[in-house]
């Protein structure tokens, strides 16, 4: 019984040899340079590894230290959750909304607006944000607010513990119209126009009905892609914060899980510990992805 099933699978594989051949170039490179390193890195979280000596197995002690003794880690979980819950959904909705609105414009304007909203993802200009939020009166924001008499003394946007997280969130939102946004733009562009004509015959009157009954169902795959991109973007953010408010940030107010992993990995060379931190983040993102695909999946059917 089992043998015949195996035979059947082998026959199926042979019948699909063309398909496997087309998969092969990508999957081979993917396997060697991504999957193997990932699999090799999985057990590191259970070891003590300083990159000089061989990893030493320590069981769950990294994890127990993280949750029981590392108050900064607990703080970083809080920061990451606040950060992800604020930037993730907002940027996802923005991605979709802007991609849709741009789609309603005449052709010439489409390229222009897509470029304007996507440009922050291409440019590497955190220096400018440093000038905008600069704590002295030379900062653009401070000088504007002083001129408008909203504030009387310059605000330390980048170092005052009350403001750092907010500042980082603003900049993160600015760069967040990235891959997801562009994929949604492409998706809108590829919707079959005849669907709208058919919809008009069946009594669809305005843009919103078009959006609900035609566009969103046709866009389900791209929306899933954008969701995954926004999850990754909002949970793993850390570089924006590090280049903007410094490392470590004042009172660890903008200290995300990713920053914590960077701290232990590349500053203290405790790779085992850093790896355990990344593993926890991975589990959180995995759960989040499960939840979102369930919601999107239900909505699409």
């Amino acid at each position, binding site marked *: 019984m089992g043998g015949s099933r195996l035979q059947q699978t082998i026959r199926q594989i042979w019948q699909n040899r063309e398909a496997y051949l087309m998969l092969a170039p990508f999957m081979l*490179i993917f396997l060697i340079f991504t999957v193997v390193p*990932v699999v090799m*890195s999985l057990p590191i979280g259970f070891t003590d590894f300083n990159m000089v000596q061989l990893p030493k197995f320590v069981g769950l002690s990294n994890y127990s230290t993280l949750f029981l003794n590392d108050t900064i880690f607990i703080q970083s979980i809080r920061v990451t959750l606040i950060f992800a819950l604020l930037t993730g959904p907002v940027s996802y909705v923005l991605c979709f909304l802007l991609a849709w609105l741009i789609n309603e414009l005449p052709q010439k304007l489409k390229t222009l607006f897509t470029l304007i909203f996507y440009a922050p993802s291409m440019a590497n200009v955190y220096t400018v944000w440093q000038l905008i939020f600069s704590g002295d009166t030379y900062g653009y924001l401070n000088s504007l607010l002083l001129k408008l008499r909203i504030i009387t003394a310059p605000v330390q946007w980048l170092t005052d513990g009350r403001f750092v997280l907010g500042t980082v969130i603003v900049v993160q939102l600015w760069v967040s119209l990235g891959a997801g946004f562009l994929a949604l733009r492409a998706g809108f562009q590829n919707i079959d126009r005849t669907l709208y004509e058919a919809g008009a015959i069946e009594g669809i009157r305005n*843009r919103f009905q078009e959006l609900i009954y035609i566009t969103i169902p046709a866009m389900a795959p791209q929306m899933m892609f954008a969701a*995954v991109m926004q999850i990754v973007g909002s949970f793993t953010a850390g570089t924006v914060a590090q280049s903007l408010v410094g490392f470590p940030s004042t009172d660890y107010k903008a200290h995300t899980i990713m920053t914590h992993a960077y701290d232990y990995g590349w500053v203290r060379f405790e790779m085992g510990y850093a790896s355990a931190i990344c593993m926890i983040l991975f589990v959180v993102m995995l759960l989040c992805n499960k939840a979102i695909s369930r919601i999107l999946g239900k909505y699409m059917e």
Partner: protein
Amino acid sequence: MTKSIASVKGSSRMVGSRLAGTIMIFLFLTILGIFMALPIYLAVIMAFKPVQELFVFPPKLYVLDPTLDNFRDMFRTLSNLWVPFERYVFNSVLVTVCVTLAQCVFASMAAFVLAKCRIPGGTFLNKLIVVSLLYQSNVIYIMQYLIMARLRDTYWALILPAVASPMCLFLMRQSMASVPDAMIEAAKVDGANLFTIFWKIVIPNQKPALMTMMIFAFQAAWNIQGGSLVSRESLKTLPTAAAQAASAGLARAGVAMAAAVVMLVPPVVVFMLAQRQVIETMAHSGIKE
């Protein structure tokens, strides 16, 4: 007859309200767009500001006395580096072209199979792609370093790890999911092999996603630095050179911005060319199936 007149009237009213809606959308996007573009505008004007204007109070939104000094400084620094500047340009162009081409071809072929062929292991590979996107760990780089033992300090070290991007594959897979199965079945009945179906039927249908993937691939490839995999200066790429030109404190902020602006030109050009193709798709996509 009367019916058709009524429908024309109705549709002209609809066109009117559509136009008003479009103008509203345009205004909304313009206001939001100004805020989005402001930091980039500031970066660009900073590249043209002479040093003494960098610290003027109150900070100005325009340049009083535009200069090309920052760009001149940048090129002067670049021509004094260890390796001739042309070498960095060559390395970057080579790596970018190879990675972009390979990534687009390999990822779209694999995406077609994963989206449209029911093969043993297909579901697993689909899941693996998404999971690999979610797993971010700094230990991966160490493992890559170990795996690349033989290839370190070669062009392969710059190119190979970047070729198989799960993001590009995932994008194409999602987009190809909407290709009707009936179309593929019909071609199979006509005796077309899988590659012909992919190349002649699916790819022409996927222009927006393909062009979008090209933007991602180019952008990622253009920023490749090689990290610890490449230590020889003669193998380093433009981002490394630009970082060297820009790394001299805030007094050199203008030079840093000049470097950022110059580095931004190729991705923006590619973006514009590709995006135009994406938008043209609409005009022709009436005939699908």
